[in-house]
């Protein structure tokens, strides 16, 4: 039997987690890049 509640939960949570993880990575990359560029400019 099709468990539609589980399917919607996996689908919604899966997509959400995927976006969240990549947002976190992009913010960290942005901060690290910003710091490196700032340091390079200072030098």
């Amino acid at each position: 039997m099709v468990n539609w509640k589980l399917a919607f939960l996996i689908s919604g949570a899966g997509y959400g987690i995927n976006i969240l993880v990549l947002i976190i990575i992009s913010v960290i990359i942005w901060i690290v890049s910003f710091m490196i560029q700032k340091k390079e400019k200072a030098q």
Partner: protein
Amino acid sequence: MFGLYESALEQMTLGNLAMLLIGGVLIYLGIVKRMEPILLVPIGFGIFMVNLPIAGIMTYTPDGLPAFGGLKDIAEGKIGILNLLYYYGLETELIPLLIFLGVGTLMDFSPTIARPISLVFGATAQLGVFVVFLIAYLSGMFSINESACIGIIGGSDGPPTVYLTVALAPSLLGPITMVAYSYMALVPILQPPVIRLLTTEKERKIMMKPQIRKVSKLELILFPIIVFIVASLLDPKSAPLVGMLMFGNLLRVSGVTERLARAGGILNDILILLLGISVGSLMPAQVFFHPRTLLIIGLAVLAFIFSTAGGLLGAKFINLFLKEKINPIIGAAGVSAIPMAARVAQIEGQRANPKNYLLMHALGPNMAGAIGTSLVAGIFMGMLR
């Protein structure tokens, strides 16, 4: 003839003949049309190898799965050489993981690092994966695990698709992998109508600087390390895929391991050859000609369309918060399919505004798509395995 000679002709079925035709079409597309030749040619020949009766190159269990055995079983004719290749290469998940290592040695993440927001498009462009997962499962034709493997075709990235399917639905590995790799070549046909439907002409004309920021060596080295650590902490099941991809990339950018990086590229070619022929060998007529296989072919189109839409809508949403707007076409490149989706973005951008060069900007989401699909594979593994 007198029990001494046995011809395979009597045992050829219509299904076998049709599969030979499909194998021939794949080889034709690879050689003549140059569509993903390094994969379609071995897959096509693999189909030949398992659809000629009695040849015994690959044997199957009654469930349609490859039979398992050792060298002794080959000598006794119980299994074929491709059974060994399937078992040690795919069943153990060795081939897709090592291919990702090789892919990492070939990838340049500079465009992604220069514009980190590209990573978000690599995530929103996974929309088709989850929409088609739902459709496949709610159709009642597929189990929840099978639906996840059909959905991930929308990520347009081969190794995560193979990796997840081997883990969750090995009986569908043949059709899913063939559809995934052959549809990637159809990206230039499937994406443009979706791009034109979901963006206005004004949006498609948005100019972006032709050059991206020059990324320092330190940034290039830190990128694979950061991505691997964060991905492994937040989505642990994706660690094998992301780890291999990022390890390969670190070899490329470190500047001290060029020989290893070159070896990774060569390894990639060898493994793609083995993957192609192993996947082709999973398509005997009795497995391929099944209503579910035909449904997978249709669902894959939907997955690509929804994923393209997800990337575009993600870029349009981000634009709401940006002072200097980005051209939303680059969001469509988040479906991975490197570098074809980025080329489509470039062509569509130039069609709207001939002065626009979107290729470098589109490569950012394009590379991010590979990370996004690996994360999705990890998410499904964590939830369903």
